[in-house]
């Protein structure tokens, strides 16, 4: 499994600086008096690994004045993670870490120098998670260490295990009350930041390879379940909407709806055909229009004829009235002639021998005029007529009268004829009018707007129904899709859950065995380190130490209990390469909480026991002056006996 090793710690600032020596042993001992910077040294490492150090913050309770007041200051950690060298650079009061690979070289003096100028890309990662879901430094770190970035669900909350969570069992700090074993969390962000679940997960991740897989499976199952329930929620939601849209209509599946749609389509086709037929009928009737024109001209002709005939009739009436006048006059003349004849016969006043000038009777010789000239008696024109002549006149007049009567009769005949013609023409007009009317009516009947409107209405209704059906089909399609999605997601969730359950069994077995193994190692270490300890193990429930079956609760032994707990982890990782614990411990001044010096030494001596595995590891240990087993002196890389030799050196 992965491993972590600090090779050098560097602090640079405008006012102060610190360059640690290169750490090339398994145990790194740093000896210093109180206030010389042992804890600061540890905090620089913790800070460099992404931890939050309140002393380095302006709002911290016990700020480290030299560092918080310094400017342009940063920490460089030269580390080896799982065999690869990285420079981790973090500026004070900053939350990004720059990761640059480096190459270790030997300089002229035979010292190691770390060269980051090899031009290998620098990665800048944030420490805190943001909603943008970019990878954090912790994710990168855990990836390098071969530990899964697990996401835990607690209630409605989810969180990811970070490297600093693991640091709780790696960094044996001074601030934490040792009874709690787990290092105090930096900042309590949520209720779950320090939950038992989180602590247990930390433990499990650090001691078991399967735990990563198991937590992955949990995460996967949870995610699948969440996805499934989300899909189901959506389906249910959509079902409500679909029911609303369906209205009173019964539930029909897509197949039925589609066949209904096809039926409607057929109806539309029929209706359209019917409509076209109607229009065709109308075009056939197009010859009605010429017929109308024809009738109109017929009517016009008849009307013109009528008026012409009427004019003729008037002329004939005029003629007839003139004839009647003549007839009347002639008749009058006739009666007058009869009266003249009567008078002539009775009085016999004038004759051919009456002088036309004086009207007296003259003696005239035959063949001579009154004037004496010779004349042809037959051709002798006189003003006076004989009875015979008057009768001739009468006869002639009578004949004239009958002639006039004939003319009048002719006129009457003509009047009748013209009247008949007028009547005929008038009938023609009426006839044409009636036909025209009938034709126009017929045209209206043929077009039959009402039927056409009915068809159109039906078409519109059907189209609307189709639109509704399509909508419902869409809904059903969507429902089917959603249902399918739900089904698929349920399957995935079931599989994930099964996988989780299988892994859970397996993991629980492994945990039990790992816990047992842990307890065995812990028991050995504890009985060696603490004289009062007869038995030591950890609880199966919360993995917390139980000493002498829980009867032993001496507070002075708390440091031993905690330190051995950490050391057990280290030992297990050296014994079994499957244990992900990164072969690294940081222990800050363990001689606190009133531990007996003898017991402290016993505890520290247990570290030496790790040498027996002949495997590389790193324990960085800071202690007070002389508070360590004498054999550790050779491991001492830094000695800060007084403030003059304090950690941070002021620049000149």
């Amino acid at each position, binding site marked *: 499994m992965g491993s972590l090793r600090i090779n050098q710690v560097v602090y640079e600032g405008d006012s102060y600086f610190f360059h640690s020596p290169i750490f090339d042993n398994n145990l790194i001992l740093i000896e210093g008096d109180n206030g010389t910077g042992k804890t600061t040294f540890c905090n620089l490492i913790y800070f460099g690994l992404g931890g939050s150090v309140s002393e380095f913050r302006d709002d911290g309770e016990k700020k480290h004045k030299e560092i918080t007041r310094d400017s342009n200051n940063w920490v460089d950690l030269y580390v080896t993670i799982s065999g690869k060298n990285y420079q981790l650079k973090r500026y004070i009061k900053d939350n990004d870490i720059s990761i640059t690979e480096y190459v270790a070289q030997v300089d002229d003096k035979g010292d190691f120098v770390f060269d980051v100028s090899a031009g290998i890309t620098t990665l800048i990662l944030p420490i805190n998670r943001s909603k943008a879901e970019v990878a954090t430094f912790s994710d990168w770190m855990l990836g390098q260490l071969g530990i899964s970035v697990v996401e835990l669900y607690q209630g409605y909350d989810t969180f990811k295990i970070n490297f600093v969570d693991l640091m709780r069992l790696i960094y044996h700090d001074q601030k934490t009350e040792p009874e709690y074993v787990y290092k105090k969390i930096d900042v309590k962000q949520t209720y779950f930041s320090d939950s038992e679940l989180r602590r247990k997960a930390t433990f499990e991740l650090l001691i078991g390879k399967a735990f990563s897989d198991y937590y992955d499976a949990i995460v996967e199952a949870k995610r699948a379940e969440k996805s499934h329930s989300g899909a189901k929620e959506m389906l249910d939601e959509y079902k409500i909407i679909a029911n609303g849209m369906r209205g009173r209509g019964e539930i029909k599946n897509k197949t039925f709806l589609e066949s209904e749609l096809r039926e409607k389509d057929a109806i539309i086709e029929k209706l359209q055909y019917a409509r076209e037929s109607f229009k065709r009928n109308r075009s056939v009737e197009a010859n009605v229009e010429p017929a109308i024109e024809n009738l109109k001209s017929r009517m016009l002709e008849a009307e013109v004829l009528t008026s012409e005939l009427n004019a003729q009739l008037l002329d004939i009436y005029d003629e007839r009235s003139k004839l009647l006048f003549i007839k009347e006059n002639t008749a009058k003349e006739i*009666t*007058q002639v009869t*009266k003249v004849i009567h*008078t002539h016969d009775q*009085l016999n006043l004038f004759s051919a021998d009456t002088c036309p000038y004086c009207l*007296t009777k003259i003696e005239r010789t035959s063949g001579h005029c009154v004037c004496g000239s010779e004349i042809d008696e037959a051709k002798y*024109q006189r003003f006076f007529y004989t009875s015979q002549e008057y009768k001739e*006149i009468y006869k*002639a007049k009578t004949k004239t009268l009958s002639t006039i009567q004939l003319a009048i009769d002719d006129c009457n005949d003509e009047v009748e004829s013209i009247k008949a013609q007028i009547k005929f023409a008038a009938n023609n007009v009426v006839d044409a009018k009636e036909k025209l009317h009938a034709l126009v009516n017929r045209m209206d009947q043929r077009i039959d707007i009402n039927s056409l409107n009915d068809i159109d209405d039906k078409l519109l209704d059907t189209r609307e129904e189709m639109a509704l059906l399509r909508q419902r089909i869409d809904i059903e399609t969507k429902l089917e899709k959603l249902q399918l999605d739900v089904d698929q997601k349920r399957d995935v969730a079931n599989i994930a859950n099964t996988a989780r359950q299988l892994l859970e069994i397996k993991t629980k077995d492994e945990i039990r065995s790992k816990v047992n193994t842990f307890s065995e190692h812990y028991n050995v270490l504890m009985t060696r380190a603490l004289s009062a300890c007869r038995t030591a193990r950890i609880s199966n429930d919360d993995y917390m130490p139980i000493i002498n079956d829980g009867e032993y609760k001496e507070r002075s032994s708390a440091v031993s209990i905690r330190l051995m707990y950490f050391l057990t982890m280290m030992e297990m990782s050296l014994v079994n390469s499957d244990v992900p614990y990164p072969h690294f411990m940081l222990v800050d001044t363990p001689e606190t909480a009133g531990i007996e010096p003898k017991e402290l030494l016993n505890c520290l001596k247990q570290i030496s026991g790790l040498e027996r595995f002949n495997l590389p590891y790193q324990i960085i240990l800071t202690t007070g002056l002389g508070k360590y087993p004498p054999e550790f002196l050779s491991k001492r890389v830094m000695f800060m006996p007084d403030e003059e030799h304090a950690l941070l050196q002021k620049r000149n």
Partner: protein
Amino acid sequence: MLNDAKKRLMYVSGDDFYFFTYSIFIILDVLKCINERTFRDYRKLPFLVEFVRDKNLIYILESSTRSDTQDVTDGMNNGAPLSRKLNNVDKEYLFRSYSNGIARRSEMLKLLFTLEKSGYVGLSKGDIDSMVNVTLIKHALPPDFLSKKVFGQEFENMQKLKLIVKRLSSLTQETMLERLYENQGVKTWAL
């Protein structure tokens, strides 16, 4: 034959002397100008002949002078027929009778002399030299001559005229013409 026909065609009934003759007799008879009673001024006769002959003229006069109007009761024109506006056709008709009368005037005296010679009428001198009065010597006529059977229409016409225009026998020519024509709006001219 040709000449006979020509003569017949030349016959104008309105100019026939026999026609004048019987008309004069009827006028005088109706106006009772018989024996001693005379008809004043023969010149009025040609106009009256027209009325005797044509009943249409009587209608025109009748309609023109109907006494159902206020004019009569007003007593204007001393009971003389008042003119009513005639239509143009009637006026023209009336005017033609006036012009006919004028045309026949010259023949009239000639005829009256013949009739006097025949003993059917008596002529006497009037107030002035040129004026000739006329009277009918009825008994000289053949007894059935003025038969109503023959001259029924003429008698009827004259009777009506006598009712329309009073004192026809004694009126001066001017007055008579005024009443027959001018009052009806027909223009006459000095004779």
